[in-house]
């Protein structure tokens, strides 16, 4: 009996924690309260839409040495439909994946000759929200290929790794205890279905990386810097884990 108990305890700490069955997959929307859901459902009451509007202006704003705006190359923003759900995506020139924010800054540098937006700056979040909004309703569909595999593996390992002073892994809350409460808040499954998200705690739009930093501070771990390879790898794993779920950007979450 004791051997069995030890085996169970050991298994909980192991990397192969119970993954959520596909039929049990639920968006953070389902764990949010009715008022937050109502806020998200009405485009004229959703504060995240203010950021989308700002992004719309940025899309048409000329920038950098090139004097080009996003629109000058990409045309109407509707051409971005289907893009956000494929991110993070592999960039061959860097031999690593970029998330959507990274891609936007890549474009600014390479094609606009403009300095990249600062990490988590209001403009970057707004433009990312505007681009992601074009894919609202589409299923998350990050590519699976040989090039991305090592980063996906890293992301998965990070998700299952215990960290911080509280020595908790993401998996322990979000795979093993979703639906239960942590300090009055319901624990969601950590499916990034609506990023950039209007988090009520921030009273502003923010990226998935910002949310991950909050989680890491929550377990008293040193949070990843914006754009760090570990952060992108974790994003990639999370998006792959949420494969098929519809994008809700800009979502409203507590």
């Amino acid at each position: 009996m004791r051997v069995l108990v030890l085996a169970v305890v050991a298994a909980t700490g192991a990397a192969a924690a119970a993954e959520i069955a596909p039929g049990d997959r639920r968006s953070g929307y389902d764990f949010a309260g009715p008022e937050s859901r109502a806020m998200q459902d009405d485009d004229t009451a959703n504060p995240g839409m203010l950021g989308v509007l700002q992004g719309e202006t940025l899309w048409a704003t000329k920038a950098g040495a090139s004097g080009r705006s996003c629109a000058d190359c990409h045309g109407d923003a509707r051409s971005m439909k289907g893009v956000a759900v494929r991110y993070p995506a592999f960039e061959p020139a860097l031999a690593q994946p970029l998330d959507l924010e990274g891609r936007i800054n890549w474009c600014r540098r390479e094609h606009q000759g403009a300095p990249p937006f600062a990490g988590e700056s209001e403009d970057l979040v707004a433009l990312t929200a505007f681009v992601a909004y074009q894919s609202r309703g589409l299923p998350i569909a990050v590519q699976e290929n040989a090039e991305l595999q090592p980063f996906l593996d890293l992301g998965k390992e990070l998700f299952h790794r215990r960290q911080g002073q509280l020595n908790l892994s993401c998996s322990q809350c979000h795979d093993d205890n979703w639906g239960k409460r942590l300090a009055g808040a319901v624990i969601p499954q950590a499916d990034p279905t609506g990023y950039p998200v209007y988090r009520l705690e921030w009273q502003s739009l923010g990226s998935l990386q910002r949310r991950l930093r909050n989680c890491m501070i929550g377990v008293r771990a040193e949070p990843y810097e914006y754009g760090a390879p570990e952060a992108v790898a974790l994003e990639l794993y999370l998006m792959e884990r949420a494969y098929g779920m519809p994008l809700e950007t800009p979502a409203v979450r507590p």
Partner: protein
Amino acid sequence: MARVLINLPARAKRGEIIEIKTLIAHPMETGYRLGPTGAAIPRDIINRFLCTYNGEEVFRAALFPAIAANPFITFFTVATESGEIVFSWTDDHGETQTEVRQITVE
């Protein structure tokens, strides 16, 4: 100019009571948050909201730091006649932002 989202019907029947929803981007800094040096970040909020309908005031609000960031205000008004509905938000610096919407009343 702060981003604004206004929801009101473009057309209404005379006498119909219409709902107006307004949302404006603003951090509504309370004046109670402590900054990185330990000093309080100064208060900076929208403290007045006004709605006029063809020049006549139909709704007014005084806002305090307890109003959440990106102030959201909804109210009702009677669609009396076609014309302009004007919204204005005034902040602690005395600066006002105005938005105008047209309404057709049959």
